[in-house]
């Protein structure tokens, strides 16, 4: 399995730093309504370069930073890191492991690293091109996207197939 570890801090409801080690082929994410399951998915796509307000369910870029709860103050930064196994070289880098980190500050300033090297969103897109994981990729299906899949126009469907070609 390619995604080995996820670390989140300050992203949406993940006010406390969380580290998730992934094992197994089929992993079920479970928990009550509103506990943060879809927020975890948002964190993954955000770290992979997603910027659209609609995809992240946020209105502005900084709305993904933990904005406080009844017991905690808002935080000033959101950071998500993903560690990928790259032994099969499915990512076009000649290393066995690829770490992607994205960080966003309240000011709106943000940074992004690929294996500790500063990167732009463009570099992320190039890295993920053809993997199904880049922005708008078909391998990540958000909650409620199922109906959109069927409601797409014939032209939109052709575009998906073009991207898969």
């Amino acid at each position, binding site marked *: *399995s390619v995604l080995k570890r996820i670390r989140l801090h300050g992203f949406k409801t993940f006010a406390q730093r969380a580290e998730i080690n992934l094992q197994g082929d089929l992993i079920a994410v479970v928990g009550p309504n509103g506990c943060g399951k879809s927020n975890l998915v948002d964190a993954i796509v955000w770290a992979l370069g997603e910027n659209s307000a609609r995809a992240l369910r946020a209105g502005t870029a900084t709305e993904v930073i933990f904005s406080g709860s009844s017991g905690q103050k808002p935080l000033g930064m959101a950071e998500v890191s993903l560690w990928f196994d790259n032994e099969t070289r499915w990512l076009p880098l000649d290393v066995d492991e690829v770490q992607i980190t994205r960080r966003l500050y309240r000011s709106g300033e943000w940074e992004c690293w690929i294996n500790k090297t500063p990167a732009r969103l463009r570099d992320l897109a190039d890295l993920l091109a053809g993997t199904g994981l880049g922005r708008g990729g078909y391998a990540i299906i958000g909650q409620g996207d199922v109906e959109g899949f069927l409601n797409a126009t014939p032209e939109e469907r052709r575009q998906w197939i073009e991207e*898969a070609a």
Partner: protein
Amino acid sequence: AREQFVSAFEAIRGAFQERYARLMEGGQADLILTLPNDPLSSGVLLEAQPPGKRRQRLELLSGGERAMTAAALLFAFLDVKPSPLCVLDEVDAALDGRNVERFVDHLKELASSSQTLVITHNPITSANADHWIGITMSEPGVSRVIPYTIQHVEGDIPSALTDQA
């Protein structure tokens, strides 16, 4: 580019026909080019006919039938263009017990070749996972991840069931 598109289209179309008939245990579905002589400006129509029924417009299909059709299309895309990681957020929400079981068979098949994360409230889906990520809100408004080291999930409340709560 036209050759590439047509070959991708034919591959996805064939996979979609196979996946639909297998998921629905019968019936048939198809992808059709609106302009077969000009594929790159064509639209792609989606038709689906559940077993025992006549072919009708997609809007007439039930919530569960639409979800199964969308799943068949998603699996078809992944058959043709596999992704090392797939994330599915509550795509089983509209399915009844029997359809969930068939869907889970396809999920397990997918998981044998791609690391697959599913967010789900469905006990059948989560019972078939080989690992779980439990998320709760021990502190209001703040997500907490509960690693599962034993294969037990009951309902949507993971905290009671792990030896690390």
